């Protein structure tokens, strides 16, 4: 029995060492992955900032107004008369909900102004 004791210890040590090495490499790999993910995160955050700024730039009211005048020639700013004409209709609609039209298309006459 005594003869096997050193062998037992040797195997144990080798096993322990091997496991340690494996775990150490795994930790390194994970750290590498973490670094990569953090870098990706920072890069994505930067991209989001750039895209949001670009979105805001493209949505300048000055610019949208020019584009709308150029391409949406059939649409015009809302006139007071249009709303006043629609007011009784809106009040009626509120009193009795309109049934669905036969063709299934619901027209929204006037949207209630959104308070903010």
């Amino acid at each position, binding site marked *: 029995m005594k003869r096997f004791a050193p062998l037992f*210890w040797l195997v144990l040590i080798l096993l322990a060492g091997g496991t340690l090495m494996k775990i150490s490499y795994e930790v390194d790999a994970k750290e590498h992955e973490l670094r990569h993910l953090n870098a990706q995160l920072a890069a994505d955050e930067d991209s989001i900032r750039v895209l949001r700024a670009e979105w805001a730039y493209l949505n300048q009211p000055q610019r949208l107004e020019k584009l709308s005048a150029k391409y949406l020639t059939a649409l015009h700013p809302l006139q007071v008369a249009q709303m006043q004409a629609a007011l009784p209709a809106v009040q009626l609609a509120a009193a009795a909900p309109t049934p669905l039209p036969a063709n299934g298309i619901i027209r929204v006459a006037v949207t209630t102004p959104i308070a903010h």
Partner: protein
Amino acid sequence: MKLIPRPLATARQRLLLIAGFFVILAGVIIVTLVRVSLGFDHTHKLQTVNAQAEDSDSETDDAAPELRADIEDRNGEMLATTLRMASVYADPKQILDVHEAAVKLATVLHDETPASLQQKLSRPMRFIWLKRDITPKEEYDINKLGLPGIDFRYEERRIYPTDNLAAHVVGYTDRDGNGIAGIEKYFDKQLREEDEPLTLAIDSRIQHIVRRETLNAVEKFSAIGGIGMLMNVKTGEIIAMASVPDFNPNDPGATSGIGAIDPKFNRAALGVYEMGSTFKSLTISLALDSGRVKMFDTVDARAPIHIARFTINDFHPQYKIMSVPEVFIFSSNIGTVKIVQRIGTELFKSFLEKIGMMAPAPVELPEVGHPLIPNPWGEINTMTIAFGHGMAVSPTQLLRAESAMVNGGILVTPTLVKKDMAGPPQGPRVIGEDASLAMRRLLRLNVLAGTGKKGAVPGYVVGGKTGTTEKNINGVYIHNKLISSFIATFPMDDPQYVVLVMVDEPHPRKDTFGYATGGWVAAPAVANIIAGAAPILGVAPRDENAPELLQKLAFPGLDTAHVIEEGKKE
């Protein structure tokens, strides 16, 4: 001892020693193993974090340090942000083929030619800027070229995506990101330290409408400048503040000038002007509130008033005895002087103090103008200031005072930051509810029948007062240099917003019959603003001829319809 020979005993001892050593070693390894695998080892983690930071200084993949917070409008639209911008540089020593590099780079950097780049890349230096603040696309394209010796430096840059839109409000920063004007300066510390974006009271859409109409009025009348403002009379929130001419905060150095000629000068808050007849709404509110003048008291406005070396006359002389509504809608200076004489200097002065005319407007901007107040203040000053001459205040001050006259008498604090306020206006009471209602009726009448007819917008029950003053340059009033303004409130049956447009040195036009007065210059601009902004602001149009509305704004004992008919003949 006998059983085991001596050398063998020695060998056994040595073996035990070695075995013991290995046992201890194995023990240490096992303990470490357990610690690492179960995550007890904090020192190890700290080391990796440090290693990571060292790995990536000056690289883009650095975990971002705090960036200056964004500024957004009341609906969350971005007005200012901070981006990490790349600047491209070259290390000529590392470049393998200068000609090839120059030709390739020129395909990306469009403001350079292959020749100019080749010359730059041939210099005997280790560092040379090729272009500052390149776009992400340019950065990507340069990376794709795969040239050795070409690299990037990253710097933070403040970006204003809406350009000129709210330039005077937002302000700008210097190259190092220190706020040096506007909100950027006033909230500098907060923008540095907090992550959350700063939400302004400004609404970009309304700001655009106000700026556009102000620009149009300034251009149409070949004026040197102007302002347009829109404020919530109940919360004091400034929804739009435009000063024309303006500038692009992305490149504030591009424009310059001295004093008020500088496009960066904020006329709306920093500029102070003699406001003219718009002041009459303040004087008459006080007169009615104090009880010293009743609505249908009459004053004699038949002859000009001579005092000291001055003569006070009317722009539209009526040569008659007038009641208060007539004084107001014909904008009679003589009548207003007669009214203020019944109030007296002391009460008038303390009233101006109470409505914030004697101190800079308390608004969140570093650029706020101090009012110019006559000192000493004699009776002549009371007389002229009653109709808006002889005292200069900022448009923001006037807007604030006017909102108190119409909102039921509460002086609100103007603010550029979004407030979540519901319920009645907060602030000290400066006039009574009755006087405020009387002023609403007068302002409405003035748009129906008086000088403010061009400010009307059907459905929005606009009321307002015009103002036209000659500019005072070095103590001399210049006849043909005017400041023309119109201040309006809508809807008059339940005032919600007050709008002011002021145009600096408008020139008369043929199609305005030679007039450059507030009624011709500023009132149409205000009408356009209200027509465009009211639907966005959620103000529902009303039937202006509804009996209850007419009754609310009618004068007991006055045939309003007749006055309006008379007004139309003008």
